[in-house]
Structure formats: C-alpha cells, structure tokens
C-alpha cells in the first residue's frame, strides 16, 4: 500500500531485513527496546524515593 509495506528485496535475507519490510517497523522496534526499560527504572526509582521518606 503506497509502498509503506515493501516485499523483501535486499540481497541476503535476515531478521533485520524482515523487520524492515513494514513502515518504520525496524526503527520503532529498536527505539522501543532501548527506551522501554526506562519505565521500569522510573518506577523503581520512585519506590526508592518514597521509602527514603
């Protein structure tokens, strides 16, 4: 559809090549797994701060 989803056309198939077929799916995947655990760090820190009080 409008070239947002593209069939795999690169030379060698790979996991990253497969993820690259959807609209921004590869970069969203990478950004998300990097950033997401910060939510856990946030609540953990919040708990620590409360306990200190």
């Amino acid at each position, binding site marked *: 559809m409008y070239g947002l989803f593209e069939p795999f*056309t690169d030379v060698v198939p*790979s996991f*990253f*090549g497969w993820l690259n077929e959807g609209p921004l799916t590869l*970069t969203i995947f990478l950004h998300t797994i990097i950033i997401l655990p910060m939510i856990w760090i946030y609540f953990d820190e919040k708990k620590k701060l409360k306990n200190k009080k």
Partner: protein
Amino acid sequence: MLTSIKTNEFAGSESKKLAMMYFRVAIILFGAQLLMGLIAAIQFLAPNFLFEVFDFSVARMVHINALVVWMLYAMIGSVYYMLPDETGIETVGIGLGKLAFWVLTAAVTVVVLVFIFIQVGSGTESSIWLINEGREYLEAPRWADIGIVVVVLTFYWNVFATYMKGRKTGIMTVMVANLMALAGLYLAGMFFTDNISMDQYWWWWVIHLWVEATWEVFVGTLAAYALIKIIDAKREIVEMWLWIEVLMLFGSGILGLGHHYFWIGTPEYWWEIGALFSALEPVPLVAMFVHVLYDWGKEQGIAKAEGKQGAVMKNGPAMAWIVTNAFGNFLGAGIWGFFHTLPQVNIYTHGTQFTAAHGHLAFFGAYATILIGMMYLGIQGAYGIDRLKATFKSKMAIVLITFGVLGMTVALTIAGYEQVLVERAELGAGWNAFFVAQNLPWYVQAQVWRAIMGVVTFVGFIYLVWDLLTIGKKEQTAA
C-alpha cells in the same frame, strides 16, 4: 602560556603543569592544521601550486591528522588539568605521564616528517607499517598506531588510578568510563583487509564512534567541569544534566553509526536505522546549549539577587568559547549534520563539498571551541588570576575565528549544492561530471570565498596565540 609552567601558582600540582605542556603542543599543531588547510584551499584554485612537490593529498592528510592530534592533545591536557580538582588528590603517576608526553610528541614529530617528506610508499605491507596507512583520518602508520595505544594506556592508567584513589564525582565517573570506550575504539582501525566494504565498516567504528559519540560525551564532561569552575554552577544540577546528555548522546549516537552504512556495500536495513537514530543526534546538542545558557542565567540571577555587582563569570574568554561551543556544536554537528543524514538526500550529497562544509563547522563548533576554552582556564590557573577578563586580542581571536569558520562553511555549502545538483543529480557522478561541476562559475566563486575565509580564520588564530602568550602576565600584573 610560554612561562605558564614556571609560575609556581599551581602550588606543586604537577598534573596541571603537564596539562599546560599538552596545551602548548596542541596549539602548535592547530597552527599546522590551518597552514595545511590554506595550502589545500589554494590548490583548489591554482592546481599547479606545489604540484608534484607537496600535493593536495599530502596537505590534506596533514590537515586532518594535525586536527585530530591537536584535539587529542588538548583533550589529554584538559583531563590532566581537571584531575586534581575533581578527585581532590594529585595525579598518581605523574612521572609516567611526563614520559608518555615526550614519547607521544617524538612519535608525532616523526610521523609528520614522514608524511611531509616521504609522502607515499610502494604497494607493500611495509609502507603501511612505516609510511602511511592511507585510510582517511587514520593515516598514521601501524608502528605509530601501536605507540599511540601504549601512550594512551599509560594516560588511561593515570586517570583510572587517580580516580580510584581520590574522590569519585559524577563528572569523573563519566570521564573514566567514556575514556575507556574512546581508547578501546582505536583498536577497531588497526588491521588490514582486501575487502574495502569490511575496511570501511570498521573504519567508521573509530571515526563515527569517536566524533559522534565518545568525543561528544567528553565535551559534555568538560562543559560540566568548566561551568562549575567558571560560574560556580551547582554540581548536582550540572551532573544531572551530564547524565541526561550521556543518555541522549549514546542513545542516538551509537546506532546513528548506521548513517555511514548506506552505500558501502552494507545491507539496505541500515537506511532506516541510520536515518532515524542519527536524526535524533541533534537533540542532546540542543539540551547542552540550553543547559549552558540556563545555568549562566541562573547563577547571574542569584548573584544579582544577593546584591552582587557585575558578572559572575570568573573567566571571560573561557566562558565566551564555551558558549560558542554550545551554539557551534548544535549548528555544526546538529543542523549541518541533519541536512544530509537521510538516505534520500545522502545518495546525492555523500562525498561532496557538502560533507566538507559539515566537517568544518562541526569539528570547530563541537571541539575546537571548548578545547580553546580549556586552554584559557589553564592560563587562569597557571597565573593564579581570580577573574580573567577578555582582552582586545581575546575578542579579536574569537570573532575572527568564528566568522572565518562560518564563512568557510557557508562557502562550502554553496559549492556542495552546485556539485550535488549538477555532478550528482544531472550528470550522474562520472569522471566528466565531476570536472564539469568543478568548473561551474558559482562553484569556483565559492572556493575563492572559502580561501578568503580561511585567511580570516588564520588571522584570528594569530590573535589567539598572541593572546594566550600574553594574557596571563598582563592580567596578573593588572590584578
């Protein structure tokens, strides 16, 4: 600066004396860089200038290597300068540090002499070991690579041991971790392969992960230290910002490496990774800019509220250079980098004067500025001046150098546009296409302006050296 080691104002801090030694070599190499740049700029306009005597490739090689090496010198100097302040103790292995300084300086001298007088070798392994490795920025022959690694390990041991023994501030924690990555990355550029794609893949690990990741974090730590020194910024605030900067710089910069993997034989998926991670690289640079100005304004406001007169700034020229850094880093590395970081643009701009425009403003804005600021901080310490004020020469230096580099950048950007549209888009990048674009009147005009602005920069440099040599004594007697 010349007498800065003999002033005794460091009260026995050998580490700070060693820092001044590094700064002095750095400024000499900075001069060499500018001279080589001028030769190369003239060759663009008059190709017969020094043809087959001192060719463009030689001038350009010394130009970029002097750049990298003077910055490394100034970086090592800055670390030796801040070590005693941050850790609260004297650097542990100062004798070894001095030995390493002389070994490194001797090695650099030999490498430069070989570059200038021997220039190229035959197509054998021994050329790569002894003369020239022929990989842009990493031209230093292999023996020198190994020497650099040994010297850097000595330096790193000094920093690490001092850190372990002394006070462990947040700034030093970032510094120690970051320096380890910075030094380790150099190893990625020390091998030979027949496969040019593989070659460039690892070559970028050194170049990109230095200038777009570890060096940027290094600048963040220097700015943090300098803000505490110059305007008494609160350590908690500065260190919190530093961690945010580390998060954003490494978060975007490490995978931002992908923007160098669009066209070197690497898979297509790097398009998306490189584009979207490197597009975020300017974000921390905005943060750094905001942080510097915010702190400055805040400390000034506090001082005013307390009824104090005048500026809170203890070192006028250093602060001026650091503010230039905050802005130049964002403009040169951030904006000029973002211009051509997307593959849709980069397929046309890759390897044109556009890249050169970005390179000039980014190296200057992100690194040269803050390292010059650190030199002024060193002078202030060496002469024991409470409040170092900018002289006429300091002002001429910063105005002319900044104006000169900005001018070169604009000129090269215009040349780049011409080249991109005509050589790349219209004519398709062949041999003829290249020279058709090089002959365009507006392209040639842009190269003339680049040379003129190079001269302006050089005049600014002369003011800078003159100021660094005299400001200490002058302000000391004035105080």
